[in-house]
């Protein structure tokens, strides 16, 4: 068993463990922190896959952006130490069952499919490639999605502002 494999297992366990904690923790603030850890674990996984750029983006956007946003909103809406309302027992059991079944089913399908790498071409990710492709208009160029996403961000921003601006009138 190689070190890489062990590292993978550790990272995986970490991601899943913290993920589970993030969705089960009784205190909301803790849940947010567990989520943070889980996202960091995912970033670690990207590192492990030697995709440093993605890992960086993961950390910057998720850890630095979204989780912070979430934590802010938690502060806005309640006290950090509050116990959250317990999930309904019945639903919990049912969801557990459903999710477990669905997971088994999905993974069975994935496992049966096999996913064999037909083309063992080495994979390398150059940041310049990303930059070039992002602004390219030719095949495998992503300038249009880029523009669309920027539009989306603009719209989302305006939307957030309008909804949030209500505070003034109150």
């Amino acid at each position, binding site marked *: 068993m190689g070190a890489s494999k062990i590292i993978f297992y550790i990272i995986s366990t970490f991601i899943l463990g913290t993920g589970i904690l993030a969705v089960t923790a009784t205190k909301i603030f803790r*849940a947010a922190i567990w989520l943070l850890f889980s996202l960091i674990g995912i970033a670690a996984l990207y590192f492990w896959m030697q995709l440093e750029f993605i890992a960086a983006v993961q950390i910057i956007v998720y850890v630095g952006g979204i989780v912070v946003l979430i934590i802010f909103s938690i502060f806005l809406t309640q006290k950090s130490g509050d116990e959250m309302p317990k999930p309904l027992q019945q639903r919990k059991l049912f969801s557990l069952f459903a999710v477990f079944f669905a997971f088994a089913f999905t993974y069975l399908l994935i496992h049966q499919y096999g996913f064999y*790498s037909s083309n063992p071409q080495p994979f390398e990710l150059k940041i310049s490639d990303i930059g070039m492709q992002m602004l390219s208009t030719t095949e495998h160029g992503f300038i249009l999605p880029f523009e669309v996403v920027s539009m*989306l961000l603009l719209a989302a921003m305006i939307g957030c502002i309008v909804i949030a601006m209500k505070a003034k009138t109150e």
Partner: protein
Amino acid sequence: MINEITLTDILFVSTALFFIGVYGFFTRRNMITMLMSIELILNSVNINFVAFNKYLFPQHLDGIFFTIFIITIAAAEAAVAIAIIINLYRSHRSIDVEDASELKY
């Protein structure tokens, strides 16, 4: 060395994470934690894309780019969702999803 870990193993992680997120989405009564579950779901998809791209289709960067766009959109979505949640909190004084069930039947 990386070949010791097969793609299916990574997919196990992502799939598991996906369903953990789904579970959270089903059971969490706090809106913000529901949002957090969504993030988990999206992250698992990201792992999928990245892994597929790296293991199976290394010629192009399609999966990578998809991941990047998903991350961006997740941010936008989270922002709008949080704005709405806050707005809802103002009127409901609660972010318990069970309380937001005025519209029904």
